[in-house]
């Protein structure tokens, strides 16, 4: 079948036509070898635009199509569909990007037009050699893995489980709950955080469709969309979960006291513990690093007093293999540690505390039973809340953490409620109260008498310059709205730290074969139109692991991720792109270089025949093996040498 090529140059309104002379590009294309028709049109992606292609296929016998328009990222599927509806194999199509790669980045119309011609010429020569390919369909396993048991993971798990699908929820801590469990109230409604979270937690704990794997981590991930195989390491709890009924006798008998992570080290827990009273599952765990028996070989007090013989010092890590069709990562965040900001004195000055420490102090189940107290046990009379600590700062994190303004104002409200006559000051750069009911909450806090100073403090010091400053913390700042530098003595300073990714975010991303952005948050597939998916099919993200966000946004994103997973499950199968690599076994020398190069573990070695083989379902078509093969035995479908050489030729002539 002699190739008859149709070329369609898109104006994209004035996006392309404003710079590129589209008519002359279309005219130029008409003179290229094999081209039977070339047109320019205002919007090729519109229905009439697509109809042009279909009509030419039918009436002029066009059997190869080139569209010169935008990036294939958005509209390659659109045009492939049009080509297919016209009756051709969808791979008889090539797209020349003359918008992102040309009109948007080239100022001179003359140069832009030349470049557009070169790109079109490349696409035309390439499409000449295109071959028909068939996409493959693979089944989707109906189970789902969710990593991270904070509010995002809980929400997504419930959505999927309530739809009748099985969920494995993996959490590295002994209980689910995440950071939300540590919070006292939530802005702007002042709902008690634990009161709205614990019902969801117990639903998760009791749900027949949710298999909860706490105190567990992901060891290994293999497979591809619809068919992932996951190795989950259940760390040894030294407590038999089937026997433990959470009575807590072991905790009262254990003689070892350790700083409580849940209470931000403001209280003590035992070496055998649950992080907090409402833990799900309500099963204790022995902290091997601090347990006297593990350190010195004797004690076993917990074992002696456990009526159900649940303690098992011989327990070992257990690796569980599960098969799932989709994965949702909801690994959350870490609070920025303000100790590197020396001028704020965190860790050096008493009564300079972080926001999570404050959350625990103000919580009635916290270390002070909800009494806000200074290190000396007295109530503070004046408190400074400092915004943007570690956020909006090139030295730490350039981004805005999005929650600090609001939680700082929540603190101001709680302080007025908990400490009679407290004078509260907020130090801000800009107030960002963008959510539903947030600006109103700002107004409410102002009405309650909190004083807002616009200015990022230069430093916090305990060196007094006047008698009034003695024994106080002095906030040195410029009241920028007045234009005067001031020193303000207070009793307590709360540093409103920002949100940052976990230290191991890169490792996690690597395990699941997704990528991290500049700041190490997971990268979504599209920042505007696909903030839930990732570039790896079947791996979804939700919550603060994708970027700082508050609880309502996190819940919305988690539900969205769940919906996407359910859509795949209910369809039951996914189509896999046909542009994979294959090995010519006659040429393969069995050197196994490609086995090591493949980032997707798609290549295995056939010991019997001494050749390598590619699993097409796993292959992502990255081309690494093709370039690496010393025998030239590997061919990349849709990126054959012939096609690429023709493309280069097209650009260079």
């Amino acid at each position, binding site marked *: 079948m002699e190739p008859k090529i149709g070329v369609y140059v898109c104006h994209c309104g004035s996006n392309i036509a404003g710079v590129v002379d589209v008519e002359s590009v279309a005219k130029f294309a008409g003179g290229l070898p094999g081209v039977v028709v070339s047109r320019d049109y205002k919007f090729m992606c519109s229905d009439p635009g697509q109809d042009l292609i279909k009509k030419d296929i039918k009436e002029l016998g066009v059997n190869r199509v080139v569209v010169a328009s935008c990036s294939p990222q958005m509209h390659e599927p659109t045009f492939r569909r049009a080509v297919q509806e016209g009756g051709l194999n969808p791979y008889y199509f090539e797209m020349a990007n003359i918008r992102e790669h040309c009109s948007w980045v080239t100022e001179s119309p003359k140069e832009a037009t030349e470049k557009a011609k070169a790109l079109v010429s490349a696409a035309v020569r390439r499409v000449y050699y295109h071959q028909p390919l068939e996409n493959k369909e693979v089944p989707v396993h109906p189970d789902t893995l969710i990593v991270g048991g904070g509010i995002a993971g809980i929400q997504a798990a419930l959505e999927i489980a309530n739809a009748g699908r099985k969920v494995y929820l993996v959490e590295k801590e002994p209980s689910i709950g995440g950071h939300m469990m540590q919070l006292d109230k939530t802005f702007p409604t002042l709902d008690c955080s634990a009161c709205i979270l614990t019902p969801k937690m117990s639903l998760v704990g009791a749900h027949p469709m949710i298999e909860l794997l706490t105190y567990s981590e992901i060891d290994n991930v293999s497979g591809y969309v619809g068919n992932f195989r996951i190795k989950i390491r259940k760390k040894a709890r030294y407590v038999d979960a089937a026997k433990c009924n959470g009575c807590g006798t072991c905790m009262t008998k254990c003689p070892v006291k350790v700083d409580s992570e849940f209470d931000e080290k403001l209280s003590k827990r035992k070496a055998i513990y649950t992080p907090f009273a409402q833990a799900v599952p309500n099963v204790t765990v022995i902290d091997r690093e601090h347990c006297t028996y593990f350190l010195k070989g004797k004690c076993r007090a917990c074992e002696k007093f456990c009526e159900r013989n649940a303690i098992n010092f011989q327990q070992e890590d257990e690796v569980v293999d599960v098969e799932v069709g989709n994965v949702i990562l909801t690994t959350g965040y870490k609070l920025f540690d303000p100790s590197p900001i020396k*001028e704020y004195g965190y860790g050096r000055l008493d009564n300079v505390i972080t926001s999570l420490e404050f959350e625990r102090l103000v919580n009635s189940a916290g270390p002070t039973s909800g009494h806000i107290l200074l290190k000396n046990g007295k109530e503070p009379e004046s408190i400074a809340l400092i915004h*943007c600590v570690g956020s*909006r*700062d*090139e*030295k730490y994190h350039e981004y805005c953490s999005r929650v600090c303004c609001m939680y700082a104002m929540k603190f101001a409200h709680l302080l007025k409620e908990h400490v009679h006559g407290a004078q509260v000051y907020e130090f801000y*750069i*800009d107030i960002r109260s963008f959510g539903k009911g947030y600006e109103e909450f700002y107004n409410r806090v102002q009405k309650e008498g909190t004083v807002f100073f*616009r*200015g*990022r*403090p*230069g*430093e916090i010091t305990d060196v007094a310059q006047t008698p009034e400053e003695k024994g106080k913390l002095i906030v*040195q*700042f*410029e*009241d*920028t709205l007045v*234009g*005067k*530098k001031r020193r303000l003595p207070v009793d307590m300073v709360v540093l409103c730290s920002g949100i940052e990714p976990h230290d191991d975010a890169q490792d996690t991303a690597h395990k699941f074969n997704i990528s991290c952005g500049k700041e190490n948050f997971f990268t979504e597939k599209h920042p505007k139109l696909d903030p839930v998916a990732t570039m790896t099919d079947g791996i979804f993200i939700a919550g603060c692991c994708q970027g700082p966000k508050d609880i309502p946004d996190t819940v919305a994103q988690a539900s969205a991720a769940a919906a996407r997973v359910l859509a795949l499950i209910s369809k039951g199968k996914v189509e896999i792109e046909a542009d994979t690599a294959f090995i010519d076994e006659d040429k393969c020398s069995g050197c196994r270089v490609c086995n090591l190069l493949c980032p997707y573990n798609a290549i295995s070695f056939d010991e019997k025949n001494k050749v390598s083989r590619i699993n097409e379902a796993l292959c992502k078509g990255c081309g690494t093996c093709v370039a690496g093969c010393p025998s030239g035995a590997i061919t990349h479908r849709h990126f054959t040498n012939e096609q690429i050489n023709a493309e280069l030729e097209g650009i260079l002539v």
Partner: protein
Amino acid sequence: MINGKTTFLNEVASIPACDKINECVQCGVCSGSCTTAEHWEYPPRKIIAMVRSGMKDEVLNSNSIWYCVSCYLCTARCPRNIKPANIMHALEAIALKEGYKPPTKTTTMYRSFANSIEKNGRIYEFGFMLDYFLKTNPFAALKMLPLAVNLLKHKRMPLLPKSVKGKDQLNKIFHNITTGGSR
């Protein structure tokens, strides 16, 4: 540019170390960190805002920029890496070049200091202070007398200047700085 004329902001922003002035978010951490801002007519943050508003005369006639003691706390703490101290010094240079008469003796101090270095290749304290007091208020020198006696006693302030080696090279550097240099 406004009507083909370079604005004050553009003039400042075109100085290499001041190029980020447009990125200032006016958070005020510079003023809050400044060791002398109490004495400034306008604190450093406001100076930056005034430059951006084109208030050239107000900025260059104020005492503010001259009170910067180059401790660089502002620059160390600035979240946008604006380098306020550099901007203050750049403004000083513009003020001197364009003949502004700032309400401070700092300019005389700078001049005497620079003269002393130009002459000897290093600072000659006795001559430098003498020059400064003669140009400003000779009687003020009397207040410094006890300190001077103490310094002399401890041989911390030689009466005669000492010059450095290779002064011709230093002169070349000075020449290049004052004339804009030749490549």
